[in-house]
């Protein structure tokens, strides 16, 4: 195993306990959500239909048939996703700062490894990407399981069965997480990775120049955002929408790559020449 892969493996290992806890919370909360929401629906339906003698059609007309969408809109489902997103955003910063602070200054060891320092940067970024993909994969595995649980609880005439694809297509928040087309995948995850790279570079500016570095980092973030959104901004300012959506898409991909390239190059420079323990 080469040193880069060892570094990625090491970074993943350092977050594994928290990561597994996040996965555990997601599984428990979402399955609990399916059970609670399904039982509650069946109870309400039975009460309305058999005790209050409301015709089934009237009940379904007002309440709608039970489907996974009822669960998806609840805090049981979205809560753990929000928690995972918040934890990963926090981790984007923590993955660097933990090495500088505390009794054990691990940054000394990392910077003294006989490997190009940019590998530290890239291994941290890849770790975050793998963690995101891991959580999305867990979600993809969970959705059909949750659908089956819903089917066990809710009678056939009370529910609408949906495939995983239909569930995702009908819930915008999930579409962002699990894109259905390659273009969407490149757009969402490319933008996400670009944001991680930009934040990493801003952190390295701060770690290299401390107080002044915060300003340099903020300028870098500002410039990166400006460059990335420049086609859209120019069109908005000029009020001339002369580019087709596919042209904007291609331009954004190119500019995204330029920003990522600039971020890696700047970080390489900072890690090699300016970083301070």
């Amino acid at each position: 195993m080469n040193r880069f892969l060892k570094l990625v493996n090491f970074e993943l290992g350092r977050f594994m306990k928290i990561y597994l806890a996040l996965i555990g919370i997601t599984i428990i909360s979402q399955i609990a959500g399916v059970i609670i929401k399904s039982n509650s629906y069946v109870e309400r339906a039975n009460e309305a239909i058999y005790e209050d003698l409301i015709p089934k059609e009237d009940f379904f007309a007002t309440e709608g048939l039970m489907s996974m969408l009822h669960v998806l809109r609840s805090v049981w489902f979205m809560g753990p996703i929000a928690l995972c997103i918040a934890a990963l955003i926090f981790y984007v910063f923590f993955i660097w700062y933990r090495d500088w602070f505390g009794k054990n200054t691990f940054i000394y060891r990392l910077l003294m490894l006989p490997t190009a320092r940019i590998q530290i940067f890239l291994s941290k970024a890849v770790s975050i990407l793998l963690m995101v993909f891991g959580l999305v994969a867990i979600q993809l595995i969970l959705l059909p399981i949750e659908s089956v649980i819903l089917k066990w609880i809710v009678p056939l005439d009370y529910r609408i069965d949906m495939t995983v694809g239909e569930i995702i297509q009908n819930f915008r928040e999930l579409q962002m997480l699990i894109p259905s087309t390659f273009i969407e995948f490149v757009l969402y995850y490319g933008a996400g990775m670009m944001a991680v790279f930009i934040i990493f570079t801003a952190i390295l500016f701060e770690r290299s120049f401390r107080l002044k570095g915060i300003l340099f980092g903020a300028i870098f973030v500002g410039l990166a955002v400006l460059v990335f959104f420049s086609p859209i901004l120019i069109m908005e300012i000029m009020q001339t929408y002369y580019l087709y959506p596919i042209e904007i898409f291609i331009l954004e991909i190119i500019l995204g790559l330029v920003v990522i390239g600039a971020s890696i190059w700047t970080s390489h420079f900072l890690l090699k020449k300016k970083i301070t323990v």
Partner: protein
Amino acid sequence: MIEVKNISKKYGRKKVLNGVSFTANKGEITSLIGINGVGKTTILNAIMALTPVNSGEILINNEKINKASYEKITFIPDAITMLPQMTIAEAMQFMQDFYESWNQERATELLGFFKLKESNKISSLSKGNTAKVNLLLGLALDVDFLLMDEPFSGIDIFSREQIAEVFTSHLIEDRGVIITTHEINDIEHLIDKVILLDEGTVIKEFNTEEVRENEGKSVIDVMREVYRT
């Protein structure tokens, strides 16, 4: 040979190093001495490219430091550079995974020498034992140069004696050592060369053997003379 050539370093407006120059050779123990805040640690950090200098140049075996240099030179800071949740065995495994110069035989020998248990967690170690693990992780590398920052700082007398023993053993032989220390008594007789620092500059550089033979003075005598005037 490590060549530090006219390096200067500022933190904000404060000049920490001002034109520091010296050389350290393989097979010699060079000690950087000076009061707190004089720039000793900054020099070691600068040699290892852990902090940039504003001017000057540092060469290791005639080359600027690069990734391959970390197989030839290592730095043992005053705080341990491993994660507290690691066991000593895991810390050693980490070093073995990343350094070709890791010498497992020597690491095992050092474990025995320091009477350390591989299964112990770093976070559970006493200050003395933490310093020993830190030393073990550096000494088990087959490197030409070892930089040590205050290896005796804040540790008990028995641990100090044990660490001092390392300097007379084959574990150091033939390597170049740069050490910063306040506890000069422990290793005074082992030092080959002394660099006295004050306010970020080298105020005196001498060979201990020469001073001892020609002037009949110890390192501490010279320090008294220099710092009291």
